[in-house]
């Protein structure tokens, strides 16, 4: 999975591309942790994620919880249809803030 980060707005944008499984959670956590103590939202763009497994989902939840504890949030942006369906089936669509675009 590729991770690209844009920090030129108050709300950082983390764009993921590829398959998000347990092989990828360490690098995702490392990238997200740099924003963890900030009190604004972190946008995670999921438009080019073709699969996310339970480890990837757990890592998203962990980031979201940590960000909310600091007064911010993790917002999922433009999830691909596959990710959208997986979020719905796992009922995580109810837990996250999801936006149709970035």
């Amino acid at each position: 999975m590729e991770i690209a980060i844009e920090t030129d707005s108050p709300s950082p944008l983390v764009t993921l591309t590829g398959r998000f499984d347990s092989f990828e959670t360490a690098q995702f956590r490392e990238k997200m942790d740099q924003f963890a103590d900030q009190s604004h939202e972190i946008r995670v763009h999921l438009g080019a994620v073709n699969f996310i497994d339970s480890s990837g989902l757990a890592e998203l939840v962990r980031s979201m919880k940590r960000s909310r504890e600091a007064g911010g949030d993790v917002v999922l942006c433009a999830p691909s249809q596959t990710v959208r369906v997986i979020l719905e089936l796992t009922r995580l669509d109810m837990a996250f803030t999801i936006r149709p675009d970035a």
Partner: protein
Amino acid sequence: MNSSLDPNIDKSIAYRSWADHKIDQPPEWSVVIPAYNESERVVPTVGAIAAHLCRSGTPWELIVADDGSTDDTVEVLNGLGLANMRVLVAEQNRGKGSAVRRGMQAASGNIVLFADADQSTPIEQFETLLKALDNGADVAIGSRSMEGAQVANKSATRKLFSHGLNILVRFGFGIPYQDTQCGFKMFTAPAARALFAHQLIDQFSFDLEILYLARKANMTVAEIPVEWIDAPGSTVDPAKVAVEFLKDMAVIRWNDIRGRYRGLTHDLSA
């Protein structure tokens, strides 16, 4: 057969309709997932398959063949409430071959695919295999060993075992395929009916038996390079599998000598 996805279909509406309403015609495609203690891995796989295949506009069904899971795989799946997904419950764990056979025999599509529960071969490879059946094959098998295959995260031990077994299978058993064990295989309905009615092996090496039977029945088998990711949490133990595989090669030969596969050709032409 329709081997392409329809770009004019609204993906969300198509999925919602499939999820909520039982299709009102026989399925063109059936997808079978064998599952043993897969409560953590199977739901994302179901989601990925559903999201992808609903884009086609083709009526299809999903069958998850439980293999006597002792975790809550069955409850989790039934809790999804998907209108076109059936969960076949097994009282006992008998092996992957047993689960796949039950799923394949319950399938009613004209084309039947079985795919592993961990999405190790991404469902996006569906169309590649379907094209081979469109071109006249009876069976299309995913291959991680052919030139053009994209394999990620496969351990050195697993590569070594796969290579060794493949040499045995090709030269000792006369099966010419480079990868008999990829858990992503597609069949026409008549081929699936004939082959799985004669499958006797319940464990991991049932794939080998199915391909042996396909050759015996003079079916056309297309081996297709696929993308494959060694998904985390695999329950395959290479050493155990290798021993079982060797034993089952002898069992298949013995079954054939004893005439236990008799009737296969007749079934295919019936």
